């Protein structure tokens, strides 16, 4: 049997006060797809930063053996020179530069000191063909969707004659089609002898594609599973990650559905800059007290756009349609008005739109309802801390105190802060947009439990999600959205992934 292409032996990495990695060993065979799983904060990204030289030699203990030689990478350039390329979760492409320019950025095709554009574009075209991306090399990257940008990143890696490709959550932001394409590409690359390490939270993908899986928990290696020889189920991986059987991935909840709370009628929204483009097309939906209603749709179907346009016209232009609360028409022209009417919207991108990351938990929780703790314009900070402390305990936010800066919390805890913030506004309708995106399995379960609790308390919940099992597991009713139109309304009992997918990919809405 051939020697492994990569061995990391007994890696220990300490930050002041924290042992991020403790005696972690991992061995990656030549030409395999090796998945790394673990909860957020388990140490996966740290391990990859050690490997790629972001944390240089000397800042950690242990050995890295690559291609049979011991490596001492001082920087990311050193590891790239050896053919180790890392593609981060947040893509590192320059939106204004063309595909070809991005691919050869820092590695320009130069002849006599000047860039040879013909060669650049020609080589780029060849690389694009290899990754199966049907775009011109001169297209600005900003015009491509996330899925295609991901492919550009891989083309860029290929241009560096990559031997070991590391992908950090490559499919997190992709829809199912794009994900499928990306996984297929990884398989092809494997066929060409390129080894991949893939960090992912999507266990179904790991089960589908990985040859072996290393599980990391709390900075230690738990085990390495051989995915080919053994029958490894998702439940098996989850057990390794959380150290316990989750049993049910979704907590059960008894829905006691009451009166209709929110109804949206004939809602139409146009794109904010391309005025003639209809993003949400004549959508109508309703949600009742104590009910969890899902909105399913592929990326670009208009889910977020629908929610944000209702929430104080935060998206789009030429918005028309009616919103009813308890049967009375209301206006939600500003976010302020929407909040006042008891509508809350927890965004899909909590870092960009949800939290003030440089501020503490306390300030974030109170930010949407300062009135509650203010008198005559003056904020009572003692009251504020008390309120925040109550939420920290009831929502189980793991932080030393409410004065902890939210930017330093894990994704799951950040999401709990966002939920706390909206609960503090005492909403009647909660719109949760991808509430479990980028959150590890254990924390997801906690968020689900919280959502159930909200519904059981009589609030109406609208749940937007890309993960169909999540919708099916959580919702009482699911609307499907395709190209801005509501194409179906499916009750809990009829909801299957196949059925939903069929509705979500419908070209035209049902005949009215």
């Amino acid at each position: 049997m051939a020697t492994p292409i990569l061995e990391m032996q007994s890696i220990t990495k300490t930050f002041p006060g924290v042992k991020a990695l403790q005696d972690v060993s991992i061995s990656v065979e030549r030409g395999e797809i090796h998945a790394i799983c673990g909860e957020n904060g388990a140490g996966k990204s740290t391990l990859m930063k050690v490997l790629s030289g972001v944390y240089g030699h000397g800042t950690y203990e242990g050995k890295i053996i690559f291609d049979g030689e011991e490596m001492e990478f001082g920087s990311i350039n050193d590891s790239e020179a050896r053919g180790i390329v890392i593609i981060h979760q947040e893509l590192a492409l320059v939106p204004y530069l063309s595909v070809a320019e991005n691919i050869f950025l820092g590695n320009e095709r130069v002849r006599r000191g000047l860039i040879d554009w013909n060669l650049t574009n020609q080589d780029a075209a060849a690389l694009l063909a290899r990754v199966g991306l049907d775009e011109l090399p001169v297209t600005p990257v900003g015009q491509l969707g996330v899925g295609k940008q991901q492919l550009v990143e891989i083309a860029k890696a290929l241009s560096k004659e990559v031997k070991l490709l590391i992908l950090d959550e490559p499919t997190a932001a992709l829809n199912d089609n794009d994900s499928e394409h990306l996984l297929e590409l990884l398989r092809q690359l494997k066929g060409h002898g390129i080894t991949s390490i893939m960090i992912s939270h999507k266990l179904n993908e790991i089960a589908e594609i990985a040859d072996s899986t290393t599980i990391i928990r709390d900075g230690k290696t738990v085990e390495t599973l051989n995915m080919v020889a053994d029958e490894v189920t998702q439940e098996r991986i989850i057990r390794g990650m959380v150290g316990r059987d989750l049993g049910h991935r979704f907590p059960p909840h008894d829905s006691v559905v009451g009166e209709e709370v929110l109804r949206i009628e004939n809602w139409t929204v146009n794109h904010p800059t391309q005025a003639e483009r209809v993003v949400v097309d004549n959508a109508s939906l309703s949600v009742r007290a104590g009910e969890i209603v899902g909105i399913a749709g592929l990326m670009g179907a208009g889910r977020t756009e629908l929610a944000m346009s209702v929430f104080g016209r935060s998206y789009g232009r030429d918005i028309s349609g009616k919103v009813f609360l308890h049967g009375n028409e209301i206006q939600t022209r500003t976010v302020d008005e929407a909040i006042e009417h008891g509508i809350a919207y927890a965004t899909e991108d909590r870092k960009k739109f949800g939290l003030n990351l440089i501020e503490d938990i306390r300030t974030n929780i109170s930010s949407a309802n300062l009135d509650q703790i203010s008198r005559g314009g003056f904020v009572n900070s003692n009251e504020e801390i008390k309120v925040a402390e109550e939420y920290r305990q009831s929502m189980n936010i793991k932080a030393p105190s409410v004065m902890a800066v939210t930017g330093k919390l894990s994704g799951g805890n950040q999401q709990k802060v966002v939920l706390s913030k909206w609960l503090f506004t005492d909403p009647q309708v909660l719109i949760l947009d991808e509430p479990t995106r980028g959150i590890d399995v254990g924390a997801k379960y906690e968020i689900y439990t919280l959502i159930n609790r909200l519904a059981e308390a009589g609030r109406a919940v609208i749940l937007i999600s890309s993960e169909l099992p999540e919708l099916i597991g959580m919702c009482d009713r699911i609307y499907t959205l395709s190209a801005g139109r509501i194409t179906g309304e499916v009750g809990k009992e009829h909801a299957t992934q196949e059925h939903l997918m069929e509705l979500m990919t419908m070209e035209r809405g049902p005949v009215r």
Partner: protein
Amino acid sequence: MTAVVGLKDLFTRNLRQSGIFVAFIAIVGLFAILTDGTLLSPGNVTNIVLQYSYVLILAIGMMIVIIAGHIDLSVGSLVALTGSVSAVVVIRHGQPWWVGVLAGVAVGLLCGMWQGLWVAYVGIPAFIVTLAGMLIFRGLTLKVLDNISLSPFPAEYQRIAGGFLNGFLGGNGYDVFTILIGAVAVVGYAVSQLRSRQGRIRYQQAVESMPIFITKIALVGIVVMAFAYQLSRSRGLPIVLLILGVLIITYSVLTSKTKFGRHVYAIGGNLSAAQLSGVKVPRVNFLIFVNMGLLAAVAGVVYSSRSNGAQPGAGNMFELDAIAACFIGGASTTGGVGRISGAIVGGLLVGVMSNGMQLMGIDQAVQQVVKGLVLLLAVAFDIFNKRRASAAR
């Protein structure tokens, strides 16, 4: 049992904020030694207050602008314009001093509204709007003054920046009134601290242990009283110091304890999140610039009073002094961070340094270089700290 916060926590909670205080004390100590104590002499302490008051007034407004993630390059020109309008009203038209002050303030508010309109409601970056403002207001200054200097102001007007409150209670070699005001300030500080401490205890929050608490108040008391004593031995309490004190307290409360203040921090910290939390972003931005206009007018009046007239070139580069004070005092270039106290200490630090170097007879050119380096180092220190903090995750 109420939890107790240790000294170390207090200090490390915000290294940048406490760092600037330490740096300030070090600079004062350094120049006190280098100038054989002249720096802290009664006459010179008074001088520093008079000489840098208008930069400090500007720095207060600028801090709020910077926290919200903007910048204002126009304040120097606005100081000139408001001072000139005031001078024209008082000197050319012979109106009483307070009519001049009101006219200056009105112009400041109008200019602030003008810029706020463009920034908040049209959505043009503040850098551009205020760069334009810098040119426009300078041009208007020249127009108002017909390109010539106006002087002198009547005595009452001069008192705004050059006057002192003293002699009300007599004194033997030192002014009792000044010391009394110092004592009132210390008592006021102690009472407000005590009340906030009691409030925290009522809510069962951690507070400093009693010895630390008393030491803190005693330290502040000693510094303030020493300062008041030095002032009292010279000319008494400068009126402009009173104005400055009121502004500092008002704006510290405004930024740290009001909804408006919270909204400013929220906008600077994450604009989109603030919008989606129901903050009326345009209104807040508008008010921030109106306020900056107001403070620029106050600074304009103070400056014109101090220079006893209006010159076409007044206030040149003041915007940069104010901006530097904010960044030295802990503001972040990306917004969302900063305190009024930081801006004041930052401004004083630059003031003490310039003053100390002047006393030592150091060349103007060298002074500029040193000031520039201090600004650079302060921000570098900030970035270094942030990097260390994020590496520690």
